[in-house]
């Protein structure tokens, strides 16, 4: 059997997309579970298991998957989800190379921010990678910067404006919730509030996990299906092949189960010292903002919402303090997400296009594997796991102390 270059790149795109989905999972475990782990409402291993199961359920709930996921930022598909005709010659090789390079950009940025323990948006990383590879391949006109003005759309409408608005909204809601909760429960014994709010915390965190599964697994399903359509292996723009659904659901929940402990630690311990009433207020705010946004068609990043909530709950609790240095580093990471993932995406496209044929995609994937290996090795120098995720932020990390001068 002869494997053509087109088949090879299709297989690589699918594998890379699943790898992205996996990083998406462990990068975002923190969003739902960091606060419950930090307050001891759930033991770390139990928390990631619960979150993984709910992500799996959420991913399967997405019966109707948006195949037009890339339309928000780039122009490689029509409104019905079918790929642009001029990109599908040669079994979609041109389109597949753009997607492959974009996915690599997203994964590299996800791994880098994980290494630094910074929560940043996985969707923005994916979009950034795709924007970069599209600019490299099709020029600036290939990017959907502003939409057509009929709705909130494009890089500005679907990424930048929500990125500014959603953490602020979440912060305000969490702040108001925290303030009210503390007002109402003054005079109640602490053992009563701690147990009571732990239950509330677990419930609200579970909602966030479920919503995450429905939102994020869909994106990878859409990307893989686009690749299958472009290469002529699938033609229905109204549905996703069942095996794609299963493998994406499994990839994201396995990633979630692995647990991005470095990020969980930052969000649960680094930003604010959280108590269970705050945890419940923060997760309720996150769940409400996520659900209200998807209900009202307002695109947003789960990560930024959760971070906003945690900061809000820190600001509003009497006597609590927010480590603004940590928050500042996160904001820097958010600002860098699109350009950094985009640069990697663009570079990968150039490499892939220069070599072409079989060699192009193979080298691109080889670079990804090499970089991932390096990042993993670097992370082993100061491992963070379920065992030390809750250690004191200030005392422990001698290695962390050296980070003062490190880039965020």
């Amino acid at each position, binding site marked *: 059997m002869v494997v053509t270059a087109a088949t090879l790149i299709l297989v690589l795109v699918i594998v890379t997309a699943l790898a992205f989905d996996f990083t998406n999972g462990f990068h975002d475990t923190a969003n739902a579970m960091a606060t419950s782990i930090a307050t001891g409402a759930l033991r770390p291993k139990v928390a990631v298991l619960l979150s993984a199961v709910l992500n799996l359920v959420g991913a399967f709930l997405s*019966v109707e998957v948006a195949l037009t996921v890339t339309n928000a930022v780039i122009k490689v598909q029509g409104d019905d989800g079918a790929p642009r005709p001029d990109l599908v010659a040669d079994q979609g090789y041109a389109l597949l190379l753009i997607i492959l390079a974009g996915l690599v950009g997203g994964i590299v940025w996800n791994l880098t921010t994980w290494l630094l323990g910074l929560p940043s948006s996985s969707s923005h990383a994916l979009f950034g990678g795709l924007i970069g590879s599209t600019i490299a391949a099709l020029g600036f006109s290939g990017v959907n910067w502003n939409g057509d*003005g009929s709705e909130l759309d494009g890089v500005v409408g679907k990424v930048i404006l929500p990125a500014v608005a959603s953490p602020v*909204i979440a912060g305000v809601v969490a702040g108001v*919730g925290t303030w009210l*909760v503390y007002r109402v429960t003054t005079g109640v*014994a602490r053992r009563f509030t701690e147990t009571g709010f732990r239950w509330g915390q677990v419930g609200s965190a579970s909602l966030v996990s*479920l919503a995450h599964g429905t939102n994020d697994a869909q994106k990878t399903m859409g990307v893989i299906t686009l690749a299958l359509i472009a290469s002529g292996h699938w033609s229905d723009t109204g549905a996703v092949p069942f095996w794609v659904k299963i493998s994406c659901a499994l990839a994201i929940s396995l990633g979630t189960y692995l647990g991005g402990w470095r990020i969980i630690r930052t969000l649960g311990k680094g930003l604010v010292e959280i108590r269970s009433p705050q945890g419940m207020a923060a997760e309720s*705010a996150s*769940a409400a903002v996520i659900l209200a946004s998807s*209900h009202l068609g307002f695109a947003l990043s789960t990560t930024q919402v959760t971070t906003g909530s945690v900061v809000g709950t820190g600001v509003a609790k009497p006597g609590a303090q927010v480590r603004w240095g940590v928050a500042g580093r996160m904001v820097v990471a958010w600002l860098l997400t699109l350009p950094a993932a985009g640069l990697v995406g663009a570079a990968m496209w150039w490499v892939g296009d220069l070599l072409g044929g079989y060699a192009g995609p193979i080298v691109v994937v080889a670079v990804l594997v090499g970089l991932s290996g390096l990042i993993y090795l670097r992370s082993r120098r100061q491992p963070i796991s379920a065992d030390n995720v809750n250690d004191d932020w200030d005392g422990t990390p001698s290695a962390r102390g050296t980070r003062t001068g490190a880039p965020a």
Partner: protein
Amino acid sequence: MIDNLQYAFDGAWRVLVASLVFGAGLPLVYALGIRSLAWGAGGDAEVSHARPNPVGTVLAAVCLAIVLAGVALGITIIAAAGFGKVVSFEHGYPTIVAKED
């Protein structure tokens, strides 16, 4: 760009209002529930060590029921979206309807 700003502003304040009602309102009700539960239990449950009052337990149950209804609504919104439906509030109470694009 200007269009997008307007849409974003329009979307943002509606998200803010809805989120305040559910995201801060439900925790408030939950907190009231815990407060009532402590009132019902009396003694060690409160800093004041007041006597137990059964009205508190009843109130706590009501609060918990409201919160559970809110959570059920949240799950319905998530599940409905997965099946291409939306939860509509046009009649004042939530109903599941087909999504219109």
